């Protein structure tokens, strides 16, 4: 993410008005259309958490590009930030569209929302290359292990042995998107649970401050097709089995007072983000450093063997060079460069003609 913190002082809240963020905007300015998803859908919790995170982080709505593919999750970009541009593209191809938009305007703050089918099935090819390129954006996979809009078929993230409502058992191994993301060079990889809003909010706040691709796999139960006994992506299963690997909080540079943000008590590890802000991490039962790539991959392998549901920030490398850095672009968006910058002079054409004689 390219979110250098603008030098805006915290706006004082008007005595009688609603609470505002550092841009002076109330949270209602970050809301979107009414959700049309099923009541109780985990995705709606994620949508609301995105609204909170972007409002709290004081992100200018006009700079946000909401990118998505096709599916229940991809619909949700319509349910937040009405004052931002959104693009609901084709199934599994959001990464390419998002990449293109950032090439055109590097100042966009790109928030991509996808699902497990959109990312791990039809979109696997594009997702892999988005990771390789380290395109600077936040990418959420709202992961429920099934296709909702087509009425409950397995997706590639369904766990081996888990059951559909109809009793069909998944006999194929699941794709671990987090392990794949780390393997392919993503510098911010987390997993959360839509029922753990507190953790997700802090991960999202940190993701917005990251300069590269921030990938967040959020287990988000489908109340209609995958919330039954035998499912490993149900609310009951998640609540019973979720084990956060640490507690974490993100403190932006302008939030000096620790009481304004939910920082874990006695934070034992600080990760500074290049564009400002610090991720504060407190260890729980295990001694785990998310800056250690090998440790992160080992942890994911281990939890896979033990069938554990771990959440938290698995890996962070704030220094990783992102795709736009590699292209050596100027600061102004390519989209709006004036003609004088993009059409070479007649002398250049004369020279080219001469070379071809």
């Amino acid at each position, binding site marked *: 993410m390219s979110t250098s913190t603008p030098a805006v002082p915290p706006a004082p809240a008007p005595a009688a008005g609603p609470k505002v963020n550092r841009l002076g905007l109330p949270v209602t300015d970050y809301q979107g259309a009414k959700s049309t998803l099923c009541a109780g859908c985990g995705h709606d919790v994620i949508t609301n958490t995105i609204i909170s995170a972007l409002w709290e982080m004081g992100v200018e709505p*006009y700079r946000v590009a909401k990118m998505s593919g096709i599916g229940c999750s991809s619909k949700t970009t319509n349910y937040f930030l009405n004052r931002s541009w959104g693009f609901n593209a084709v199934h599994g191809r959001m990464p390419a569209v998002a990449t293109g938009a950032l090439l055109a*305007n590097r100042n966009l703050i790109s928030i991509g929302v996808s699902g497990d089918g959109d990312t791990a099935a039809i979109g696997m090819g594009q997702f892999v290359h988005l990771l390789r390129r380290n395109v600077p954006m936040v990418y959420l996979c709202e992961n429920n292990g099934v296709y909702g809009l087509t009425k409950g078929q397995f997706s590639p993230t369904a766990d081996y042995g888990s059951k559909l409502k109809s009793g069909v058992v998944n006999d194929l191994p699941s794709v671990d998107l987090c392990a794949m993301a780390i393997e392919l060079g993503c510098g911010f990889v987390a997993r959360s649970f839509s029922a753990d809003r507190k953790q997700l909010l802090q991960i999202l706040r940190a993701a917005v401050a990251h300069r590269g691709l921030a990938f967040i796999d959020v287990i988000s139960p489908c109340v209609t097709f995958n919330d039954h006994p035998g499912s490993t992506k149900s609310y009951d299963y998640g609540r019973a089995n979720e084990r956060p690997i640490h507690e974490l909080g993100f403190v932006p540079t302008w939030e000096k007072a620790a009481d304004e943000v939910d920082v874990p008590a006695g934070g034992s590890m600080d990760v500074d983000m290049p564009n400002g802000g610090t991720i504060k991490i407190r260890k729980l039962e295990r001694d785990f450093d998310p800056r250690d790539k090998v440790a992160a991959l080992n942890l994911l392998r281990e939890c896979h063997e033990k069938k554990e549901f771990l959440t938290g920030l698995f890996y962070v490398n704030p220094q990783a060079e992102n795709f736009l850095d590699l292209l050596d672009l100027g600061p102004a968006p390519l989209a709006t460069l004036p003609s004088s910058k993009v059409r070479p002079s007649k002398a250049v054409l004369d020279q080219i003609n001469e070379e071809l004689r």
Partner: protein
Amino acid sequence: MSQTALPAAPSSGVRAPVVNDCSIQVATVNGSGSQTANNTLLRAIFQMGIPVSGKNLFPSNISGLPTWFTIRANKHGYIARRKEIDVLVCMNSDTAVEDVKNAPAGAAVIYDETFGLDKHRSDLVFYPVPFQRLVKECCPEAKLRKLVVNMIYVGIVAHLLEIDVAEIAKALGKAFSTKPKALELNKAAVDAGLAYAKANLVKRDPFKVARMDKTAGKILVDGNSASALGCMFAGVTVVTWYPITPSSSLCETLIDYMKEHRIDPDTGKATFAIVQAEDELAAIGMAIGAGWAGARSMTSTAGPGISLMNEFIGLGYYAEVPTVIFDVQRTGPSTGLPTRTMQGDVLKTAYASHGDCKHPCLYPDSIGEAYEFAMAAFDLAEALQTPVFVLTDLDLGMNLWMSEPFAYPEQAIARGKVLDDAGVAAMKDWGRYKDVDGDGVPYRTLPGTPGDGKGAYFTRGSGHDEYGRYTESGATYVRNLDRIGRKIDLMKTKGPAPVIDGKGAKVGILAYGTTHWAIVESRDQLKAEKGLATDYCRVRAFPFSDEVRKFVAAHDRVYVVEQNRDAQMLGMLRMEYPELATKMTSVRHYNGLPVDARSVTDEIARLESNPVAGHGAR
């Protein structure tokens, strides 16, 4: 040139010289470095002021398979492919016998003496050359001989055809301008060929060249380079592509030009982003994302890539996102003949993607139009807010063509209807897809436009209303789709108009793209050989200008000439003008080689001999 006009066989006695009218075909093995030698010959003839064209017939292979390069010199300026070969250079033992068997009577054959070709025909003029001995003598380094040997035939051909040696030297100097050692080595090989020919070969064929003044001021360039230059001067900012023959060199040339001429002198930074995508799906996806966010974006591909891009093309059409897609057509279906030419994607691009889609398409015929239409395509894409296709083909894209120099664009870059925050505020009740001006083209805003987000909207490929809101209302859907249809129809007046030549003939010829060059020559043949006058309409854009309908209506019979099996353009014309369907008859050429005038002439003459039977047939 008709076959009857070919020079007689040697046995019939002395033949009058044939000056500035011959085709030279060089048969080699691909990967042997013959391209520089062939271009040296072509360029030297060009520098002598003689109209010339070069066609490379190459395999889909890195090295070891046969390849043929044909150079046609023609005093009248005919630069289409010609089927008949006058001078054969046989450097490939695998194809030499077949090449010789297929040569027309009277052709000259320059060949490696070890091939023993003279036993196969008695009606050709044979020039055996000890290439291996000559190259050993002039090139001490054994591993370079495979490459250098080609320059020996340059010397032989130059001597036999009387190509000016100074022009050969000049062409070599251009090819090796930064490699003095290679220049010296290649020059020595040319000289060895010249010396051998002078001392050992007695000229017995009639073909020669003589200085003219028909190429003064002209340039020699391939169509992909011309398209690339058009893109650069159009102000392209985002290029996303996936390598595929025959389109790769468009983007590769563009990369070279952009690195040289599109670095901002004030910042030292690139004013463009060029990304090699993981496949064509991603290439078009990125181009659409970039076009949506306001870049002048493009991708370049060939038929298989277009097939993959179809879903995204429909999104671009329905969500109204500008981008430019170059399709350098090759021979399909499927992988087809990847290194041969075809006008095989005409129908597919015009209506690409599911549902009702119709796309603006441009059909350049030449270097000049490959350049100009590239620029026009970006303006049209932004004016109409839709993907625009530029269809060239392998023949135009990868072969060298002579052309007038590129003209600097007179028109300023036009970005179409784009509003900033104040513009949105000033317009009462702005909606992304509202038809404010009655032309079907709405006003768009760009993501990231500074302000309070008044112009923010939601883009989707699902049903939407005038404000971009999701809807499944049938009435709204029809209203929106009809507006898009009206918008695309603006191409009838905004696209390049057809070029119409001649007036009052009963018979019309309609063609497009590179087929043009065969038509120019074929019309002269029809007139000279059959006394048949024809009018000619060259279509340059789809949806068609009304001038096209008028042309068809004004003629008794119109022959639609194209390079595909299924008469794709004819099908489109019949769909657009059902009332004129039976006036049009198809003439097709689709063996992977560029269409030649003789094939067109013979087919039209055959159909004309019984116009009633041929009437309206496919």
